[in-house]
């Protein structure tokens, strides 16, 4: 800088500064364009938030939300849902012994049956879920512990599973298929539902296991290695099953080759990790047979459980849920209530604003006068 040279002007005497205007090196001598944009005069909408201007919005929101909320609430209430906990924590619970004995290493299956009664018939298709509580499928390390390439049937990924699968990547140098903690902890209870007739006979309720997984998962994301020809051949030998599994992946559903291996729908459903520690996963679908008879008539039922999955160690719970669904999914009154609440609050605040407006805000009209 040239601050050092103070030879320049002093007001009273005799400046030795200099004449003229800016050196051309600095001044860009151009008259600015007179455009709305450059002069910051773009046409604009200038809302002013005052009680007067805002209160219609509140009333409108209130008036829209409350009916929606009522509609949602009614819809949700029309959904029938039945839930039964079969963990077997209590002594008198039928599965108590199974629960006590169950562990991952246990190879002998333990079965128990739970009886329940449906008060109301379930009319439309019924979805059968298993529900787990206190099961942190969203744990960070758990969520990561999978290899999507392997599940997609990638040959190389089969041989060399991703590092993310550690420590469920290899056993004794042999790669695990499917690798990772999620697969390792696959839910392996078997649930069967029987309807008890009025004469006491058990009729198995037909459970459909197709279509419980996302279509894209089943057909795009998950693929068996080497096509679906011979799974046993494809998997055998080079791979080991996950440590907690009792049977290898190619025997998950021997009955149906379309539902075996990585594309086993139960497996796929499990692999979609739940968002919250209490969750349910679709297990089977009970399809409506005819329009005249309800899918599940009211009455007594028995749930037969092959109890393999240990949850007591982490204080978990296992449930079986039967539910019909509507356009908005399963039974959940929350959203309806939320809409009603928010709508009511809006309406209430609207009233408050109206009072404020009339008490204090007439001046604002002066601002509204325009146009």
């Amino acid at each position: 800088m040239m601050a050092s040279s103070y030879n320049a002007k002093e007001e009273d005497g005799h400046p030795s500064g200099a004449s003229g205007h800016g050196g051309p090196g600095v001044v860009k001598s151009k008259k600015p364009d007179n455009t709305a944009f450059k002069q910051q005069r773009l046409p604009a909408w200038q809302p002013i938030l005052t009680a007067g201007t805002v209160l219609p919005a509140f009333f409108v929101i209130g008036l829209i939300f409350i009916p929606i909320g009522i509609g949602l609430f009614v819809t949700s209430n029309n959904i029938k849902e039945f839930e039964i906990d079969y963990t077997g924590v209590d002594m008198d619970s039928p599965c108590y012994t199974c629960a006590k004995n169950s562990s991952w290493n246990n190879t002998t299956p333990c079965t128990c049956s739970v009886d329940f009664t449906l008060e109301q018939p379930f009319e439309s298709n019924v979805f059968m879920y298993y529900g787990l509580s206190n099961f942190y499928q969203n744990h960070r390390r758990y969520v990561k512990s999978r290899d999507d390439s392997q599940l997609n049937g990638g040959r190389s990924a089969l041989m060399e599973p991703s590092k993310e699968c550690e420590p469920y990547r290899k056993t004794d140098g042999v790669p695990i298929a499917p690798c990772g903690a999620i697969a390792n902890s696959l839910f392996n209870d078997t649930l069967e539902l029987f309807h008890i007739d009025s004469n006491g006979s058990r009729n198995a309720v037909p459970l459909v296991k197709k279509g419980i997984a996302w279509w894209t998962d089943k057909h795009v994301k998950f693929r068996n290695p080497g096509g679906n020809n011979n799974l046993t051949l494809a998997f055998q030998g080079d791979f080991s099953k996950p440590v907690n599994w009792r049977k290898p992946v190619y025997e998950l559903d021997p009955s149906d080759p379309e539902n075996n291996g990585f594309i086993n729908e139960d497996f796929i459903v499990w692999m979609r990790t739940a968002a919250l520690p209490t969750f349910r996963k679709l297990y089977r679908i009970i399809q409506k047979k005819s329009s005249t008879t309800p899918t599940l008539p009211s009455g007594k039922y028995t749930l037969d459980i092959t109890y393999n999955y240990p949850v007591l160690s982490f204080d978990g719970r296992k449930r079986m849920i039967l539910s019909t669904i509507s356009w908005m999914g399963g039974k959940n009154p929350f959203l309806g209530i939320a809409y009603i609440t928010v709508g009511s609050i809006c309406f209430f605040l609207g009233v408050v604003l109206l009072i404020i407006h009339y008490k204090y805000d007439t001046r604002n009209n002066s601002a509204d006068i325009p146009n």
Partner: protein
Amino acid sequence: MARRSSEDTGTVKAPESRRQRKKRSKENKTRTVHANLLYDAANKGEENPNRHYANNKIKTTKYTVLSFLPKNLFEQFHRFANVYFVFIALLNFVPVVNAFQPELALAPVVFILSVTAIKDLWEDYRRHRSDKEINHMDCLVFSRAERRYVEKYWKEVRVGDFIRLRCNEILPADVLLLSSSDPDRLCHIETATLDGETNLKQRQVVRSFFDLDCEFDPLKYNSIIECEKPNNDLNRFRGYIIHRSGRRDALYKENLLLRGCTIRNTEEAVGIVIYAGHETKAMLNNNGPRYKRSKLERQMNVDVFWCVVILLVLCLFAAIGHGLWMFQYGDKRPVFDVLSPEGTDLSPIMSAIYLFLTMIIVFQVLIPISLFVSIEIVKICQVYFIHQDMDLYDEETDSHLQCRALNITEDLGQMQYIFSDKTGTLTENKMVFRRCTVAGVEYSHDANAKRLAMYQEMDSEEEECTSHGGTLPRRDSVTSHQSARVVLRSQSTKSHRRTGSRAEAKRASILSKHTAFSSPMEKDITPDPKLLDKVNDCSSQMDFMRFHSQPMSQLPSDLSDTIDFFIALTICNTVVVSSPNQPRHKVRMRFELKSPVKTIEDFIKRFTPSRLTSGSNSSSSSSLITNRSSNKGCSSLLSSPSAESTLTKLHEERSCGGLENAFSPVPPSYDGKASWNIEEGELRYEAESPDEAALVYAARAYKCSLVGRLPDQVTVELPHLGKLSFELLHTLGFDSTRKRMSVVVRHPLTDQITVYTKGADSVIMDLIKPPNTGNSKGKRQKKIVCRTQNYLNLYAADGLRTLCIAKKILSQEEYACWLQRHLEAETAIQGREQLLFESALRLETNLQLLGATGIEDRLQDGVPETIASLRKAGLQIWVLTGDKQETAVNIAYACKLLDPEEEILTLNADSQEACALLLEESLHYIQAKFLCSSADQTTKAFHSSFAPFDLHPSSSLSSSSSHAAPFLVHRLGLVIDGRTLAYALDKSLEDKFLAVARSCRSVLCCRSTPLQKSMVVKLVRNKLKVMTLAIGDGANDVSMIQVADVGVGISGQEGMQAVMASDFALPRFRYLQKLLLVHGHWCYSRLANMILYFFYKNAMFVALIFWFQFYCGFSGSAMIDQWYLIFFNLMFSAFPQLITGTLDKDVSAETLQHLPQLYVNGQNSEEYKPYMFWMNMIDAFYQSLMCFFIPYFAYADSDMDLFTWGTPITTLALFTILLHLGIETKTWTWMNWLSIAFSIALFFTVALCYNASCPTCYSPSNPYWTMQRLLQDPLFYLLCIITPVAALLPRYFYRACQGTLFPSPVQVGRQLDKLPADTRRNILSLTRVKVGSPLSPKPPFLSLSKASPKGCNKNDQRSISGSKTLEATQGQADEEEDRSCLSGPTDSEMHLSDLYTLVPSEIDTLPYTKDAPQPAGELQPPSTEVSECLDKTLEPSDVSLSSWITSTPLLTPADSVQLNLLPDGAPQCVRYSRNSEDRLKPDHAVHPAHRTEQEVEQLLHTKL
């Protein structure tokens, strides 16, 4: 354009040469330059001693292709934030703690770094291009091989080369002038690119080459030059040249031509290159733009720190939570708690520690990575818009505002103190000679005054004409210049952007203006007839005496004084005369093309030819009388006058007769003298300062014209006597410590050695020889001194700048004696400046006073208005000037800085103790008078209970400052002079001084030195902790500009030094108003809101993940896909806030300018107070709770998977964040809509593409087809509707309530904006009138009420008060009501809340706010009159307006002062009473309208 500084130069050179240079620099401290010719060619100059010096190739780029990446990264890592983000990204590579895919986590930081890198690269590339252009400019270099000058590129020029320069060429390097085609061995250069000074400077050929008869031949040159090492001092060059003979000659800066300057008026010059390339002074002087940190950014950094704290707290919380969660499972390891990759089990504590780090990664978004980049982008846009503002464009100088500092725009909105220079800043710095006193006789120059008044009228008329779009011929010519310039510019902008300015560009810019300081107003002085007679008389006598060879000393002393006075005016300066030889016929032709010229002034103005087009010699016009040798004998012979000059003389004499009416712009006898006038007009003076020019022009009006100036001779033309040549023996230049300049000449008529001194009256008066009262001469002298002093005081009281002229006659012996010591001083190498200074002091003693001049410095347009509105904006304005006290005070009155209403404290002390005492006393005085703290308290209590929404700028100001004591600003002015200031700035007194100064409304420091100016600014800034702005135009303001938070330079008449030191450069002072009030306000509020929004946005987003930790065992899991998480800030939510941050206008420019009170908003940092950060945080947490828990409950216990659940949350958060911005956006242009639409569209597009792209990638979320599925889910839409509504409900409601119940002034301004245009204009224009009206320091009350269709119900009246004080301008009808208000506050509550009090700056600046309210009746102004007056004012503009504007009942909270003024200042409506003061001085009620001047003066001189 960052420039390399000296340290960088080293890196350019090869390492080898650097090493050698190092060695060399150890060896000696000088540079030795040999001619390259001796060592040329063959061995590539292996033994050339010059080879180590930098060559002339410049390279201002920072990077090379190879060094770019490492160097740029290194530079970027200087920013702490970048290091932090890189650290976090690297943390991701540690497997135990990683949260994201490591590569992905690098993305944001890489993005940020690369954006910056690309910006740097682009800048560097532009530098490279312009370097290349400059390096490839041509110049003539002597080549040994060809034995002639050959064209070479600039970059090929080397130290030791001989260069031939032609007229209008730009110097490629620093060159020692060895030869010039000028007969006087001069070379004129223009240094505009270095210091912006456009006047010509003379440079001399080195003395030893002075007498060279034939042309300089480089081949014969074999001297060696020794000079200083390259340095950046433009005004210093020392060294000597050693000839083969062993003779040494000293070299001065007068011998050096600097790179970047332009050769003018000299056909050819030859020189040897001394410094080249980066070692040239010009390059060494180039510093990059300045980087300051704005207040807002400092505040922001505090909150960034709080964000870090919040981050750590959240992480700690999560870590502890995780530890506990682990602990509860004990040894029973649940199946979902995955072992570490090694298969080992982690203890809860260890995993908590790891988790802590993981959480830092997950929550990193809390520290807004994009904030820094966004702020930079927004600021660049803001600067762009400020640049583009037409209102800040000055047609006259064709310049507009420059933002030189890019990063402190928002500081403009937060200023609290303005420190202004006076001359050139408040005033035009167009010096106009007004009056003078010679030998004790005053010549008032009344005609001159009339003429000046007429110019003013003409100016305004002209303005009107042009504003009506008239195509005046003159404008045509201007525009043609402009277009020419545009063409020229387009081909040269790049190069002259830097040192290598181009002749064309310069020429173009000069073409459009006239010579500096030579507007007709300054040039054409109408002489005072009496004085003119005297001059004529005197010179004819002298002529007679000379003719009869009588000694001049017989001349009557008053006559000789008169003629000496004018000679002194003419020669005691450094004015250069130039007379470009523009071909006459060409001028004629152009002249005829245009419309007829009405006046000579007009003619000259139009056709003043540029000196650029001139041929060669400045002194080569008809009046080249002499050469040096011929008048050495000092014979007073008149050089034989040519026929032409006789003719000229004749003309002159003829015109003398018509001079009485010459002040008329149309000279009666015009046609006959046209050619003479042209010729005369072509003699142009180029002065370094406007006062010099003014005096020279004044002398010319008396026919004493300066016709030529050579280094050792000045030629003056006197009436009757013709041309006289004064041998110029010495010029003792002006400096600010001596405050005077002198010339020593040999008088051609008397042959005496005479010293003429011109300087500030204070110094000259002290140097006057004490008159010997014994004889009559002495008595006369005494009388002259006495009278002159009186007139000086008078001049000063008129606001004129005064200069004293004195002379001294030296005997030969005295002179010889002095000369010897002076020569010693001149040749001294050590401490030469000091010795010269002392030498000058020795000479300037015992002077004889000749007279004094009064020069008027007119106020710039709009200065009083600007000051008034800035003051209304709550800014404290201090004027720091070097002028003398009286002048300064008068200018201060003229520009409304001081108010006749105010009392003025004047501090003049002679010693430290006296100063201490004075300060003490004034402090007591102020306290006694104004600060009864207890009463103050009650007022405050009253205030707060009654008008809770009132604003108190000054009180909040003081509370925001560190000092606890509540300082009120009083209606007091403080005037302090330089000497006292020096004492007051002493450590021991500065606190007291500040205490006094801050309680005064205006402070005026006179006679202050540049250093004092900066000390004052520093003191106020550091002690009061306020934001300071310094504005000035000259080099003496540079230090002040640099010290202040924001420095503003006026790119006016005084060169560019102030501009170059400034952050913003304005063409005129009045632009400061819009710059601060509008752009400052906008920039501040935009940026403040944007920063707050950023914090909110990031906190809100991060909090979502935090809530989730409660449901995932504090495992650091995130339900939001990491891609969304990382790009959310960078992409999805980035654009709208940038648009809003750039374009949002809370209040329109018009309203902001008319209601300066709104500026307080920024001063008090009301858009961004510390609590607002926390409010935003709380709101963010609330909103994130909504966004998290509504989906949580909606999907509770469902088969929703983690990321299918997280995606809606992301979407909701995006909607909420955008809508939040919507609530905060004040103006919605299509850009806002577009950006929001774009953001949403971008999110969904990216999400859909991303979710469709790869079924197996993006572990762990693997979101294949998630979004597609969600879009089929009605629940998703339901969530999208309810969540943002629920989340934003409180804020929306709060904003609505705030807008109604307690709107900020800004909101009121917004409402004003919404009024129909004409109504608003009327209201604003009312305010406007007040601003300008001299008699109303307070704006009259302005109220706005609804003219509801139902009619104007009194009770429904709401008002916007234009004046902040709750003044009682009540209609009679309201009287009752008002009284009831006073009696029962509860009744009035409703009323009070209706009051939209806009910034009570004035009442708070008043000291009278302490009394309890008085009965309203007592205070009632004649209300009928008031309303009458109101109606009167309104009627002309809009009849219906009276229905809009009604006087409204208002409660006066601190109603001891009632000042009701109307726009017109109608006196009968004015009632002004100061109750508190009444008690002190019962008779002190003042009626300003009736105030006599005496009273004013009385107040003025209230000294302590």
